[in-house]
């Protein structure tokens, strides 16, 4: 459990992905007891109360927005994309780490994914739910959102299929659907476990219905594993395509600071960067409060911190290239855009972003001692998420506020409703996440049993 070894460099690479001494039964009982038998903790209620209050603020904000209109936000012309789009890109980016852990690491046969994939997938799902909200609200008249969907209307008109904004609709809705399927398919055997372990009649009925009569038949497992593998193979290119399409929303436009070919890879790396930061933000308190240090070990934290370091370096490369290309291109507007970012009215935001995304993580994550220190990692993960939010703010706002004609330049000042929507969406995310850890197994039980079996076989 939380032994003194955690902070020594001797831990880490040698640390097992599953603490020794666990059998199929102890794994099953430990994880399912969190849902079935343990009393709901005081800390859970406390977290839920705050999250739910924030969620209610989001509902209030949406109500105000629908009644009065998008004028309650700080947006104007030329800064027509304010917090809503910043939040959208931020949330969808956070979601990407979950899919990467569940799909890409599965294809790469990384055993350490087994204990973190379930809640990372849940994180994906809830982050996409938050993300999906913002473009809809940003439409101004959200009740006409269905104009984006191709259907044979009486006037014979169709959406503009050549527009990245329409690609976005398809990319995000496909992403949400596939993430949900992947998550649910992964849950089926665990729902059966909960059905068989539950004592209360209601939970037996609910988990029983959801498990659909799963009985662990060898033939079922064969098809199941094949389907799971295929889904992983489908989800991996999907996750890359989604953030690529999101970056097209910017890069297809001609605004200086948006019109750049580096955007797709740089957006995908940034998405993984912020997503792994969110996984750490969630994993570190979870393992502590629910005593899951045996399953989510220091080795997991160390590995995730390394991914954070690697993607952070790609993001840093992206920033450098952006600056370099602005000067190398010889384009007046591009050069002005970069100078304006670094020294203009939003310069502070830019430099805080550089601090959060590059200076802090790159000066700490190189050290094994810090990578294996949960408290330090937790702090760094929060800094990275703040930094990634600011990055999207810089891309959206500072690019738009001074484009080609000085007569069209303006400033953007977020209003209270902008902040309410941002923090409200965090409330929605946390509310959903807390409900998830209360009612569903946050670690994949059957995959942990398989891991235990595999480690035993390896031992001899």
């Amino acid at each position, binding site marked *: 459990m939380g032994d003194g070894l955690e902070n020594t460099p001797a831990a880490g690479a040698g640390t097992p992905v599953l603490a020794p001494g666990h059998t199929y039964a102890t794994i099953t009982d430990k994880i399912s007891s969190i849902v079935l038998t343990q009393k709901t903790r005081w800390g859970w209620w406390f977290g839920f109360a705050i999250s739910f209050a924030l969620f209610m603020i989001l509902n209030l904000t949406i109500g105000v927005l629908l009644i009065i209109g998008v004028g309650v936000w700080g947006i104007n012309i030329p800064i027509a994309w304010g917090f809503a789009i910043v939040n959208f890109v931020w949330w969808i980016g956070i979601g990407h780490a979950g899919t990467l852990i569940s799909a890409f690491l599965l294809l790469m046969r990384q055993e350490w994914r087994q204990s973190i994939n379930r809640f990372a997938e849940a994180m994906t799902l809830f982050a996409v739910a938050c993300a999906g909200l913002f473009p809809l609200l940003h439409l101004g008249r959200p009740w006409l959102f269905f104009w984006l969907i191709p259907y044979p209307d009486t006037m014979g008109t169709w959406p503009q299929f050549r527009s990245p904004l329409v690609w976005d609709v398809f990319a995000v809705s496909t992403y949400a659907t596939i993430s949900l399927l992947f998550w*649910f398919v992964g849950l089926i055997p665990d729902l059966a476990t909960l*059905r068989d372990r539950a004592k209360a009649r209601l939970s037996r009925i609910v988990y029983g219905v959801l498990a659909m009569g799963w009985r662990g038949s060898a033939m079922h497992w064969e098809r199941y594993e094949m389907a799971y593998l295929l889904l992983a193979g489908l989800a991996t290119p999907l996750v890359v395509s989604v953030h690529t399409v999101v970056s097209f929303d910017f890069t297809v436009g001609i605004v200086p600071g948006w019109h750049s070919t580096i955007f797709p890879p740089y957006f995908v790396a940034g998405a993984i960067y912020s997503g792994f930061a969110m996984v750490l933000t969630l994993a570190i308190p979870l393992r502590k409060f629910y005593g899951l240090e045996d399953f989510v070990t220091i080795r997991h934290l160390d590995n995730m911190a390394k991914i954070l370091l690697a993607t952070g370096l790609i993001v840093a490369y992206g920033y450098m290239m952006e600056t370099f290309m602005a000067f190398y291109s010889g384009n007046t507007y591009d050069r002005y855009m970069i100078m304006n970012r670094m020294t203009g009215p939003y310069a502070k935001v830019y430099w805080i972003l550089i601090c959060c995304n590059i200076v802090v993580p790159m000066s700490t994550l190189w050290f094994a001692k810090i990578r294996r220190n949960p408290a330090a990692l937790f702090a760094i993960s929060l800094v990275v998420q703040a930094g990634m939010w600011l990055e999207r703010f810089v891309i959206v706002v500072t690019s738009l506020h001074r484009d080609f004609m000085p007569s069209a330049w303006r400033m953007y000042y977020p209003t209270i409703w902008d902040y309410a929507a941002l923090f409200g969406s965090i409330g929605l995310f946390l509310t959903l996440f807390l409900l998830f850890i209360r009612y569903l197994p946050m670690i994949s039980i*059957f995959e942990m049993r398989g891991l235990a079996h595999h480690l035993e076989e390896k031992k001899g």
Partner: protein
Amino acid sequence: MKRHPLYGLMAEFNTTDDLLKAAERTYAEGYRRMDAFTPFPVEGLAEAIGFHKTRVPLICLIGGLTGCSGGFFLQWWPNVIGYPLNIGGKPFNSWPAFIPITFELTILCAGIFTVLGMLALNGLPTPYHPVFNAPRFELATRNKFFLCIMARDSKFDAQKTREFLQSLNPREVSDVEA
């Protein structure tokens, strides 16, 4: 077929190795209608009970092709046939711009087909199944391994099959009511 009051006989094992050996022996003995139940996927178990091919990949491929062709047609038809707009003489069938949506719909349909296909082939949801009548079967989702020989197997004989299962060194052999 004669209706048996019995669905089959269920043997419980403690380890995957015991179950795998038992499954192989049972298949070698000539039994064909059987199933094994485990708390996690066990490599080689499906082959041991004589189940070789799954059609899930084919269903996935069909889904992918449906999504791909359907997705492209969805964009090609309105732009070329339904409501063609001449914008600066650009081609109606500007296929590179149709690739992202075609790709997304390929993934979407392939994924939905895979999941629904897997569930349909597995016969899920199953509201009632006799194996749940077996004693201690709730441990099949915890830490025990089960092998069931079904009564409709042509070689099944309540007495002889029970003796055969006993010889496989199980923890327990029990009747499963239909």
